[in-house]
């Protein structure tokens, strides 16, 4: 195909960026000549050039009337939101992926509420509740001497913890706002080597509502050699 018979591409032409510069006489003579030669060959650019010239003529005709009564400063947040809207209006194709991304975010946010993620706990044999888990720290494995302290992970602010230690039955129970408690010596004395013990922590909110329970962890005091 001969050069002068080529078709004009439909996508944006790189010369379009020179239109303003050409019309406002901001191009150097070489650039201006290159652009002129181009619009003799590109009807799309020529059409845009005519459009822009008409626009500039209209703006020049209006002059300062165009900005009469405009407040110079606007709230930044509003201006930011408007700019986002401008960006979207300029690129409508962004809307589809943006909507998909928004949908994904919404799904991810609400997913935890839609799934029954909370574990269930057995409280007193047949009393089963569903709630958050309190993680126990120690003792969780067999120990060589009766433990001095029981320790668990913090559940939140203003929480009251109730610890219960069992052998075959409830051995000791106490409440605290700390995440660690010292076992009274008289109870510790009752804990003997070779026996199995278990313990559990329940967390209560300030209004007395049970909000979290730990699993019931067993440990044994190893028999002395």
């Amino acid at each position, binding site marked *: *195909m*001969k*050069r*002068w*018979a*080529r*078709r*004009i591409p439909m996508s944006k032409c790189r010369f379009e960026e020179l239109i*303003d510069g050409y019309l*406002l006489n*901001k191009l150097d003579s070489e650039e201006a*000549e290159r652009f*002129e*030669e181009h*619009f*003799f*060959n*590109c*009807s*799309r650019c*020529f*059409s*845009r*050039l*005519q*459009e*822009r*010239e*008409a*626009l*500039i*003529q*209209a*703006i*020049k*005709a*209006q*002059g*300062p009337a*165009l*900005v009469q009564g*405009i*407040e110079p400063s*606007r709230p930044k947040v509003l*201006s930011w939101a*408007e*700019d986002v809207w*401008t*960006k979207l*209006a*300029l690129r409508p194709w962004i809307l589809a992926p943006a909507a998909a991304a928004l949908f994904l975010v919404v799904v991810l946010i609400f997913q935890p509420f839609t799934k029954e993620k909370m574990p269930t706990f057995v409280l007193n044999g047949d009393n089963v509740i569903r709630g958050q888990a309190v993680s126990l720290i120690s003792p969780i494995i067999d120990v060589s001497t009766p433990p001095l302290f029981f320790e668990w992970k913090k559940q939140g602010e203003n929480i009251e913890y109730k610890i219960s230690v069992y052998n075959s039955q409830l051995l000791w129970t106490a409440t605290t706002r700390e995440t660690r408690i010292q076992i009274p010596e008289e109870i510790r004395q009752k804990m003997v080597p070779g026996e199995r013990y278990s313990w559990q922590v329940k967390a209560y909110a300030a209004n007395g509502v049970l909000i979290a329970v730990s699993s019931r962890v067993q440990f044994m005091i190893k028999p002395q050699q």
Partner: protein
Amino acid sequence: MSKQFSSQELEEIIRRYRPVVGFSVKKALGPNYPDWEDVVQDVLTQVITKLQTGEFRGECSLGTFIYTITKRRIVDCIRQKSKVKVEMTEVATSASGPEESLMKKERAELVSRALFKLKPKFREILYLYYYKELSREEVAARLGLSERQVSERLYYAQKVLSKVLRRFFPEKNSNFSSERRLKE
């Protein structure tokens, strides 16, 4: 190898290039140049003669060929203009037909209506960029915006106004019949 153009092909070429040559001449000589339409006619006559006598051999594009003739004629005019400058400034507007001025008037009204429909933040950028002829950097500094924001607002305003203007300046398809036949 030169190509013989039929009268129909020549007519189509003239129809397509008259506005382009006209634009170029007006831009170079100024819209108040009294005989710009004669200059355009002169260029187009030269184009037809050269095409008929086989001076156009397809070594460059037809557009470039016509551009070269236009450019040469404009340079001649500028040389003459400096000699008769005084007489020319006396004449005000060019003699465009009543139909054309009516269309121009309608177009101007539509554009200015569309301009005032734009939000102030777009209008102030158009004003500073096109009326005050500030650069994008200068507009950004003046309004406390980033250059990118200025470009985006400018582009948005151009896009909106372009919708109003497009019907007045339809893009002429390059594959008009004479060119299509000339491809062979």
